[in-house]
């Protein structure tokens, strides 16, 4: 398990301060996504997951993160993409997870891969294109233009608010 220390950069994360924004970059499929660094508590590899029968699709299961029970939410499914979990020979699955606190509870966001922490200039942030998929539009707040690709900024509260989705 590796852990990033969010505190170092936390001072610079609050929106509205300074001209730069810090993100933990992740990937779902080919898409580069950014999570506001202030919200990210942990980055860890989960290999033992308890599936919860009758749970909403997006919930992969429950994880034990240092004695706390964490609800794992699959970002892929949340974004409306299909997932196939492929356990290895021992029946274990290696999942890359991002630990997030939301409403006093701990969640793990399962992603395909975690990249580096980037600091981007606020001026490169643009609103979402209007023709974006409905699900994506509800979960993202904006897009950063990078040199070679686009970074979609996720709204973590919206991502974790599963009820919102069912209501819509």
């Amino acid at each position, binding site marked *: 398990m590796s852990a990033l220390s969010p505190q170092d950069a936390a001072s610079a994360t609050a929106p509205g301060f300074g001209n730069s924004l810090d993100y933990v970059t992740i990937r779902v499929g080919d898409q580069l996504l950014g999570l506001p660094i202030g919200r990210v508590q942990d980055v860890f590899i989960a290999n*033992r997951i*308890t599936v919860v*029968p009758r*749970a909403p699709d997006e919930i992969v299961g*429950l994880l034990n993160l240092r*004695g706390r*029970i964490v*609800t794992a*939410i699959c970002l892929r499914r949340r974004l409306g993409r299909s997932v196939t979990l492929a356990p290895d020979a021992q029946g274990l699955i290696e999942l890359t997870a991002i630990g997030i606190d939301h409403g006093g*509870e701990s969640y793990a966001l399962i992603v395909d891969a975690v990249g580096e922490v980037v600091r981007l200039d606020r001026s490169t942030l643009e609103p979402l294109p209007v023709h974006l998929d409905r699900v994506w539009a509800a979960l993202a707040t904006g897009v950063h233009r990078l040199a070679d690709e686009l970074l979609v900024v996720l709204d973590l509260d919206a991502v974790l608010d599963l009820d919102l989705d069912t209501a819509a």
Partner: protein
Amino acid sequence: MDELLQEFLTETGENLDTVDRELVRFEQDPNDRDILRNIFRLVHTVKGTCGFIGLPRLEALTHAAESVMGQFRDGATVKPIAVTAILETIDRIKDILAELAEKGQEPEGNDETLIGELLALADQARGEIAPAPPPPAPMDPVAAYLARHGQATAQSAAEDIVFRSAPSPQRGRDGRIEPGEQPVHAEESHGAARASGPATLRVNVDTIEHLMTMVSELVLTRNQLLEVSRRQEDPGLKAPLQRLSLITAELQDGVMKTRMQPIGNAWSKLPRIVRDLSGELGKRIELVTEGAETELDRQILDLIKDPLIHMVRNCADHAIELPADRRAAGKPEQGTIRLAAYHEGGSVTISVTDDGRGLDIERIRGKAIARGLTTEAELEKLSDAQIGRFIFQPGFSTAENVTAVSGRGVGMDVVKANVDSIGGTVDISSRPGLGTAITIKIPLTLAIISALIVVAGADRYAIPQTAVRELVRVKAGDDNRIEQINGAPVLRLRGRLLPIISLSELMGTPRAAAGEGFIVVTQIGERQFGILVDSVFHTEEIVVKPMSSKLRHIPLFSGNTILGDGAVVLIVDPNGVASLVGAALSNEAEAEPQASHDHVQNGERTTMLVFRTGAGGLQALPLSLVTRLEEVEAQAFERGGGRTLLHYRNRLVPVTAIADTQLRNQGIQPLVIVSDGDLTLALAVEAIVDIVEETFDLEMADPDERGVIGSAVIRGRTTDIVDLAHYLPTGGAGWLGAARGAVAAKRVLLVEPSDFLREMLSPVLKASGQNLTMIADFAAAAAAIAEESFATVLLDLDRDAEAAFAFAAACQEKPRGERPRLLGLTACATPDLHLRAAQAGLDDIVGKFDRRALLTELNAGGAEARHAA
């Protein structure tokens, strides 16, 4: 030292600390009545406790302080000098307490100067608010009474909770905003408090909770380390690891223990209370306690403390009779209240038993009606035990006079509410003249439960041990095997049919082996059902963690936990399982009271013919429908046109195999001959088993199931009841046609509350060509008859003859042409019933099992109708 004194010292020390803190805040803001009321109550409680325990010097002091406080409460201006005087008093009290803690008795000394000072202050204040009439001392008769008689302890327990939920004393002291104001007092007070109390420490439950989490983490890490060392075989690592392992286990034990306290702590004050009460009430009462060492979670202990005191007071006040009455009743003059606590299967049972007069069921009955909790009719159906439970209803008190001791209308309902809130149950049983027993069953702790770890599919689950009655191993072909009723699995368990729910099916995972595994017999209230799991691991103490808010809507789980090996495991909620399986179970529950009602009312015993069918199952048919039993040479069968016929008594009778029975080609074929008017049918069965007369509960089958009405346990075996209607038409339309032609389809309404009889009669009626409508109760029947017109109405007279006659009377009011023919059905026709039926306007009465007569009557009705037309 006396345990009572010990506890008094702790409590008083804490109370005083709080007063100290509040007083300073009060001086800052003298207009805050809330703070004032708090302080007053605290001082008052201390005073009451002192008086109760017999500490005159302390009592005099606190009394003086209280009268000053009383004046403030009534509106006098708070002068700094008064606050100082009270603080001084409190310091003096602490000195006395410190000595009390050391020597076990009040030190000699004189407080007259201080008391004089206080009284002068009180007088001064009283002068100031001269027109204010009420003197402070008897401010509330109840509180005053309690203060005199030791109930103050209960009050202080309530304050304990307030106190604990308030910021802890340490934080209060550190976080105080006005360190310059009264620093001397504050310092002194804490020094004194430490000296006066015994060596205990109150710790926030959250702190312990956190400790527990950490310890379970430690256990997990140790387990991982052990695993590593097993692989590496490093002797240098082994010894320290073993030590670590031991220490961890002890630490875990220790942390668990911090939460546990002997229940004796909760009832240590009771002997004194009972003694005082017996003096006051002029009764002789002995309190016997058993199992005081039974350990319980502190949180729970706090919650049951007050209910226990309340129940014991109730016993003393209401249950135990006066010595003279007891003598007259042939009982010893001295009444006994027995308080017992013991562990029982993961929970603690506390019982309060007395040998008094028992519950006054009649009075409870009257009161329940007066309060509109129930109706007379409903009460009739209830047993005395059920009626006794009304005392748990809010505001229910049968005490005629509100005595000072109890009977203020807050009573057993509060007890029940408290016990309910911690997931416990309360029950009461009483025998008139012999006594009452109240049994409380509570979980050991809210945080750690004993759970059975089971496997379903690939996953493990925890089932709370409290819900588990027993475990049954099932295996295909074994005695304990799962049987199916139309795909619904059931298990026979000591003469009962136990519905089985497969856990893996619920969880949507594939099962390891069909028909094998373990049944966890689960009880929810009165309902029992079995949960089928693949295997059972062991029972483990688990730390319950609440479910994530995203998953809380799933009724199957009550929480989750982390097991020793670090895996997250879901805790199955048996209630949720029951509710999810839903319809089947709840229908059964609803049907149950009705079924038992049957037995009480007329004990419908039915004689059944039981036979075996090809599928290996047992089926049965009411004997009244059977004409004969025959054994026929298989050669006698004549097969033609896809049908098998038998030459029987000069007639050709169709032969139909029941269920999967194979018609034999040779040898003897047992047949059940059923005839219905002109129509005769031979049912081929595997073997005739028995004729039994039994009262049984019919469990209805799925409507899709062919050939079976439902099933019942007959002589301890699951038996399907044959639906004759299913076999009759298959015999062929041709030979039925004659019967049909005779009575052109008429509309017949059958009103029969018994599911069983309704199902039994319907094939007979349908087969005879009636256009049948079946209704279970008269209210619905009245509605049906208002909407449609029926040629004949068949009324059941056994269940509720009055309703049937009333219904008949209502039918009379219809215009002549529309009036249906009314036939009463009864299992037992008495002359009296005939007479009453005639008076009510019924056309005739027919025996329920006399099909011939019934069909004749119906045909007669048809003929009449035709004549009229």
